[in-house]
């Protein structure tokens, strides 16, 4: 295995630098007006390397990564579909990159047209009345959604309503976001078929209910069949319905959250609308609302007046929950989502839902045929499904995590394993619509091969991965002996 890439500080030499990138020196006299007591005494200890050294270092680091451009990522709940290069290229046109956020709207009509049309398309495809683009991530959108629900009840004087109902299978951000809005979380169970337990829901709603947060299809990969009934129960009790858009890919173009009765939704533009994951961000969590919550949308929002576009302000929306971003959110991400939606068009939206579902059901069928256990074998897969490896854990001591690590050796990123908490030893698998049948077949072949290994040489699977830049890492040591910033060897 190649020698590991050092930390950049270890390549540093005093006096090196990409000096042609630097501006000319400024005479010290020009800085004399800066009070000495506010000046830095010594230069910050940043690495000093030349341009080629830096380029080589970071290029080599990139080569240690898996990425959609290089690997299949069947990550449930993440929608790792192809990020079209066109979206990047046209979002990075110099005029878009160079525009200051506080530049006058009169000289940003091109950009604003894209933002306005994006709002309109998102409204249409989700069946909502209003859309705001400023939340900067899915969890941020969740926060905005719950904050709007709270604002709605507060304005109506209904101050008791502070409870948010969350199915126990929900993603961790749901209860965390609800708590950050000052709400109390109330969990309800999911039944054996993967649907919300409607009887438990009826018992849980009441005068304290602010709303319910749901994903549909659910985090278990199945469609909530009684959604209309759930909506009726919550609305009759005086609560509102929040839709977590993480699984929108399954129903894009086929079903609209607004039509299912949801009052507020967030969309993950970095999932459904293919903006890049970037190794952890930036995302964008646009929110959509029905008529009840329109007055509370976060600012800013683009409005059209005749042929011109302008920003709405606090004066236009006095009951807005306010500003969530220093400027208007992740504009560059929004441009990419816009371009993607224009490339798809109305028929393309529908094809996303159809082919994502086709790929998931095909992969489920092939894995079942290969002897794997589906968590909900009687249900159709949505765009994702769960395979449980609890039998393999019991019979061979090989866990879902072990399978996940061994898949890396076969050139596949592992499916989601840490979630949902309800199904032991689960693999939540989402192929997305951009993968070909060949890749899906290769994945099934790899899983079958690992199954054989689990039976015949389980240590090989338990010790995986073997061919990656590192083997399994000592998490306990990482947390006990915190090494979070680089220090030169001499220092402890």
């Amino acid at each position, binding site marked *: 295995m190649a020698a590991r890439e050092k930390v950049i500080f270890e390549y540093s030499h005093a006096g090196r630098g990409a000096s042609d990138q630097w501006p000319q020196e400024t005479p010290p006299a020009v800085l004399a007006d800066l009070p000495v007591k506010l000046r830095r005494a010594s230069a910050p200890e940043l690495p000093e390397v030349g341009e080629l050294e830096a380029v080589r270092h970071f290029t080599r680091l990139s080569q240690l990564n898996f990425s959609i451009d290089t690997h299949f990522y069947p990550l449930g709940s993440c929608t790792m579909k192809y990020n079209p290069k066109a979206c990047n290229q046209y979002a990075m046109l110099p005029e878009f990159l160079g525009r200051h956020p506080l530049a006058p709207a009169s000289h940003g009509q091109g950009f604003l047209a894209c933002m306005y049309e994006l709002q309109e398309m998102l409204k249409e495809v989700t069946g909502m009345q209003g859309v705001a683009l400023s939340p900067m991530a899915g969890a941020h959108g969740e926060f905005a959604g719950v904050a709007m629900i709270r604002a709605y009840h507060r304005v109506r004087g209904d101050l008791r309503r502070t409870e948010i109902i969350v199915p126990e299978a929900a993603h961790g951000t749901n209860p965390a976001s609800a708590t950050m809005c000052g709400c109390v979380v109330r969990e309800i169970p999911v039944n054996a078929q993967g649907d919300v337990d409607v009887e438990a829901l009826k018992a849980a709603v009441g005068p304290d209910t602010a709303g319910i947060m749901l994903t549909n299809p659910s985090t278990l990969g199945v469609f909530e069949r009684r959604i209309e009934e759930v909506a009726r129960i919550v609305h009759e009790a005086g609560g509102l319905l929040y839709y977590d858009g993480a699984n929108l890919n399954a129903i894009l173009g086929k079903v609209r959250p607004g039509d299912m009765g949801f009052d507020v939704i967030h969309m993950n533009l970095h999932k459904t609308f293919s903006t890049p994951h970037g190794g952890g961000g930036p995302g964008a969590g646009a929110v959509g609302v029905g008529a009840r919550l329109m007055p509370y949308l976060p600012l800013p929002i683009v409005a059209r007046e005749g042929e011109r576009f302008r920003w709405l302000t606090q004066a236009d929306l006095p009951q807005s929950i306010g500003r969530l971003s220093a400027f208007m959110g992740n504009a560059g991400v929004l441009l990419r989502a816009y371009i993607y939606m224009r490339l798809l068009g109305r028929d393309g939206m529908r094809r996303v839902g159809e082919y994502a579902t086709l790929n998931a059901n095909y992969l489920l069928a092939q894995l079942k045929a290969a002897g794997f256990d589906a968590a909900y074998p009687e249900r159709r897969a949505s765009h994702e499904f769960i395979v449980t490896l609890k039998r393999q854990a019991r019979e061979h001591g090989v866990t879902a995590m072990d399978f996940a690590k061994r898949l890396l050796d076969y050139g596949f990123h592992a499916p989601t394993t840490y979630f949902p908490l309800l199904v032991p030893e689960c693999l939540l698998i989402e192929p997305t619509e951009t993968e070909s049948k060949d890749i899906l077949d290769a994945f099934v072949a790899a899983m079958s091969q690992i199954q054989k290994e689990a039976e015949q040489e389980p240590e090989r699977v338990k010790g995986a991965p073997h061919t990656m830049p590192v083997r399994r890492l000592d998490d*306990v040591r990482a*947390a006990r002996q915190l090494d979070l910033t680089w220090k030169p060897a001499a220092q402890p």
Partner: protein
Amino acid sequence: MSTVPADLKYTRSHEWVRALPDGTVEIGITDHAQHSLGDLVFVEVPDAGRVVKAGEACAVVESVKAASDVYAPIAGEVTAGNPRLAHEPEAVNTDAYSAWLMRLRPAPGALAAAEFMSGADYEKFLAAEG
């Protein structure tokens, strides 16, 4: 199968309680608890002098996969948090019943009124939890 010393008392949230000769009680988490958490990476204990209510979260035990609150089994005043755990959280994994988290002087009447499980009852409780 986790160990459950017979001479201690237990709570439903997996704390153990040991009465000390000076009238204070020593509190820790059970072997079952440390096992489900996995290798502990950090333990946060309350400061001496802190007054707690029964059932109040007053310590945190953290592993790589979970961070759990530890609850005061009875009302009282904290007389000490175990200083050893700041740099040796793994002591709780090695011997859960000697690596106490905190010592408490019970509020008047609190100990008498407390509803603890005996060792045998806690074992039954664990078996039922499955």
